């Protein structure tokens, strides 16, 4: 909001200080394009500085009416311009967390709901003789299905998470587990979760906080993007 106000302020300043536009060089004298340009330019002047600027000539009403008709004719000849898609998608209003069109500006992360009703990122184990990023790809396709065009960015993990220590029934601690996270981009397709996964959702960083355990969130919050 502040940015828009600042940009329009700067545009006004530039308009006030810059040379007059050489319309006689760019437009043929007396053409419809020139009349349309002049009309639009007067409108822009009035919008920038106020109603005292860019006044239409009062004395020739017929000519003003003829200009408007000419501009209308030009618009009809050129046909309709391309319509831009709105920035709010129907899945935004419907709060469809499985949709990949939601929140176009933001980054969405995939969360899975496992058998214990805990939300977490897709994870799995490393097999013998396998490297970490290969294991990451295999586990991702195992849990999320193969119908995703995913690209793992690099061989290096971007972060790690250690779950809190739990004790076995005898009282001795379980061996420590650590999960390494790899960054991947999805370019096409959708997640089709495997049978051991109950549900999935594509969420922004702020939404993930409300879904995930406190300890898990403290571990992963610095890995994710704010925007």
């Amino acid at each position, binding site marked *: 909001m502040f940015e828009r106000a600042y940009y329009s302020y700067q545009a006004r300043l530039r308009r*006030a200080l810059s040379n007059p536009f050489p319309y*006689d*060089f760019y437009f043929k004298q007396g053409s419809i394009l020139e009349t349309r340009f002049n009309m639009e330019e007067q409108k822009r002047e009035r919008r920038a500085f106020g109603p*005292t*600027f860019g006044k239409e000539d009062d004395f020739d009403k017929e000519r003003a009416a003829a200009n408007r008709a000419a501009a209308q004719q030009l618009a009809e000849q050129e046909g309709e311009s391309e319509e831009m898609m709105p920035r709010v998608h129907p899945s935004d209003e419907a709060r469809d967390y499985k949709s990949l069109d939601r929140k176009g500006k933001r980054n969405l992360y995939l969360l899975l709901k496992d058998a214990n009703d805990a939300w977490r990122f897709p994870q799995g184990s490393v097999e013998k003789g396998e490297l970490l*990023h290969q294991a990451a790809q295999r586990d991702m396709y195992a849990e999320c299905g193969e119908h995703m065009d995913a690209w793992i960015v690099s061989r290096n993990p971007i972060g790690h998470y250690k779950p809190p220590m739990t004790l076995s029934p005898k009282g001795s601690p379980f061996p420590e587990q650590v999960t390494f996270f790899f960054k991947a981009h999805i370019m096409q*397709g959708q997640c089709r979760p495997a049978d051991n996964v109950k549900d999935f959702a594509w969420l922004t960083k702020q939404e993930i906080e409300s879904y995930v355990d406190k300890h898990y969130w403290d571990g992963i919050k610095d*890995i994710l993007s704010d925007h």
Partner: protein
Amino acid sequence: MDPKKDAIRQALYPANMRNRPTPTGTWRPDVGRAIQHAIPSVQAHNTIERAWLLHRRHIRKRREAELARKFDCMKKAMDELANIDGHLYYEANRPENPRARSVVEQQMTKGLKASEAKTLDARIRGLFPRELRMPTDTPSKTGWNYHYKPFTRPI
């Protein structure tokens, strides 16, 4: 006489007479009045400038802080990996030759058709894929492509 040539000549070589505003080298005729309408006051203009620079500074600091946090996470993860398993750590840091087909890929290409082998080769490890979409001002007309035929490439 061709008015086009005259227009070009006037644009390239403006007249020396400065009795009316010309396209090059002068202000618009009502420049004083226009500036009065554009700027509230000198102090207000300075305040606006400083507010803008402060705003940009906030955004920059936030971005830099986020990057520092992410880098720190990555560093901690790599240190942890080094402590756990030296071989995996070495392999994670090793740069690989993007031009060569790996052993697994070579075995895969024996069973594939020529077009499928091309699709396999199209995505090169270490380079951004072609399908990665650049951020745009407004969303695309077609939206997200939910129908994708799987083609798994070995990594």
